[in-house]
């Protein structure tokens, strides 16, 4: 019975596909999987928007949306209707084709990333051997769409936002990759399914999640920072800093194209949380051996939503960084730490079993973290600002 609950979606798919002639079945199964992804993740997006607005409201001592439906839970529907019925304006000087393609491309690329995420036991659309590589290829493509949007709009704010976005995303792509490489080193596989399986083991009822190792924990922190920057979330929301750039690269978008950008952004957040869950938090495996009877997809989605809540919490807490702080943090702190983490992971591997590797690895990481924080992130004291005006 519980086995069936775990595999309920796969059984449903097989039952539906069973009505078709045998030759069509595998293709139809894939289509159904795609439909599932396209239905589930935008649904989560709707939940996330309402969760975010209400959560942020509570953090700022206000109520948040509470007018549409009970406790305002129907707010996303109202928002969707609003953005669908709004006028779609394309600036006169804009490159209309690219302007149209940018949001579409963003959403398509972000959806592609979901293809390799295992959302439950046996529940992965494409079990690719190089799933992680594919995911990062897709994740990096979002930069192209953002630059398309900024460039085609012919607006200074859009272009500045796009420039910032590309600079930021390329800078943080490196630590994002390097922090994930550690996992690949330890698992010996780029397949996300294998990575989850490696974590789905228990000692004394506790899971072997990578976050519970010194290098895994450090990598997770780096990954979280880089992922926040990668999805342009606060405090790294410089590309769309509304107090500086109106709305950044989607300044010139309205109506449903704007909604698509919004959707793409939140889907990217969901997918990068999903990847973080897969890499560090054991994917669909349960947090205690006792709870293995709970369907695996429940664990995956609750972990994703938990990560999203943390992102919302961070957004409610931190102010936006300055461009130089952002770049300094990426290149002077996060990148060296991820490189060090690679060494530590190697050390862990070669120190063999025992308590010694726990102490040594944790000590190295902590010491370097504190020292780098003290030295690398020292506050710079600039002299009084001077201006040189044109004569």
């Amino acid at each position, binding site marked *: 019975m519980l086995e069936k609950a775990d595999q309920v979606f796969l059984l449903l798919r097989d039952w539906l596909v069973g009505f078709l002639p045998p030759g069509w079945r595998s293709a139809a199964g894939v289509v159904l999987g795609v439909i599932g992804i396209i239905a589930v993740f935008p649904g989560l997006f709707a939940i996330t928007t309402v969760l975010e607005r209400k*959560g942020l409201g*509570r*953090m*700022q*001592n*206000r*109520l948040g949306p*509470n007018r549409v439906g009970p406790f305002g839970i129907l707010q996303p529907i109202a928002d969707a209707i609003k953005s669908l019925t709004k006028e779609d304006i394309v600036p006169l000087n804009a490159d209309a084709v690219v302007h149209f393609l940018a949001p579409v491309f963003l959403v398509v690329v972000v959806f592609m990333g979901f293809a390799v995420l295992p959302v439950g036991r046996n529940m992965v659309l494409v079990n690719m051997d190089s799933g992680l590589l594919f995911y990062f290829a897709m994740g990096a493509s979002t930069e192209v769409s953002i630059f398309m949007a900024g460039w085609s709009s012919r607006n200074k704010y859009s272009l500045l936002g796009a420039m910032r976005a590309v600079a930021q995303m390329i800078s943080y792509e490196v630590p994002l990759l390097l922090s994930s490489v550690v996992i690949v080193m330890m698992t010996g596989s780029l397949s996300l399914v294998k990575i989850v399986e490696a974590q789905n083991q228990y000692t004394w009822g506790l899971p072997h999640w990578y976050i519970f190792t010194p290098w895994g924990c450090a990598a997770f922190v780096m990954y979280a920072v880089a992922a926040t920057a990668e999805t342009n979330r606060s405090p790294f929301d410089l590309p769309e800093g509304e107090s500086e750039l109106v709305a950044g690269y989607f300044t010139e978008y309205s109506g449903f194209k704007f909604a698509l950008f919004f959707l793409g952004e939140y889907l990217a957040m969901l997918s990068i949380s999903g990847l973080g869950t897969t890499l560090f938090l054991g994917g669909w495996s349960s947090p205690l051996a006792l709870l293995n009877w709970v369907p695996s997809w429940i664990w995956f989605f609750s972990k994703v939503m938990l990560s999203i809540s943390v992102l919302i*919490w*961070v957004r*409610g*807490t*931190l102010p936006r960084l300055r461009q130089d702080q952002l770049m300094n943090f990426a290149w002077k*702190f996060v990148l060296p730490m991820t490189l060090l983490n690679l060494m530590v992971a190697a050390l862990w591997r070669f120190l063999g079993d025992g308590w010694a590797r726990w102490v040594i690895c944790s000590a190295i990481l902590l010491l370097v*973290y*504190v020292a*780098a*924080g*003290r030295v690398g*992130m020292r506050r710079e004291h600039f002299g009084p600002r001077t201006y040189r005006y044109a004569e």
Partner: protein
Amino acid sequence: MLGEGILKGLTETARNFAGSFVSAERLTTVQYPEQRIPTAENARVFPFLVYDGKDWEAGMRCVACQICEKECPPKCIYIEKSKDKKPDFVGKMQIYPAKFDIDVSVCMSCQICVEVCPFEAIKMDTEFELSTTDRFGGLLYDRKQLSRSNEYYHKIHPTEAAEVDARLAEEKAKAEAKAKAAAEAAVAKASAGPSVPAKATAVPAAGPAAPAAKSADAASRPKPAGGGE
């Protein structure tokens, strides 16, 4: 250590988040159309005309002296005097406004009309939900719409209204004492010299009221034409 401040900030927001569910001080939102907080006593929106008693027309304090009309900076008050007279709160015969219009779309809530009114007849209201679908007629209030009872005034500005009432009562007592003294003097005079009985009692009673009204009339009559522009 790096990140300490972030943790501190995260604790603060978490405390706000959790606190908003349990403590009323953390969640200060008043959901306006359903919930309201009482307006402050010294709140002011637009002026209204005070009347004593039950009947707004009979009890209206305004004597159409037009000082407010002249002082009003944006010139949003328009007054037309009556031809006849009616007794005021002391019982003295006074003219009254046949027309008293305030265009609240022009009014700037400066309260100068209230400051200059010698008859405590115009006061500031606290009613602010005045939206209307007719922006020309709907925002031009005539004297009936402007009239509010003294009880209403007590309700919205209790301290101020009590002061005003005390002042008016004092004035009334003074007027009554004066009338009484005059009557007594007349009685004494009548008893002293019996030669002119009827004329002596009539003159002191009507004497002060009629010239005052006449002089106020004379002073303000030429002005409205010039003051309106």
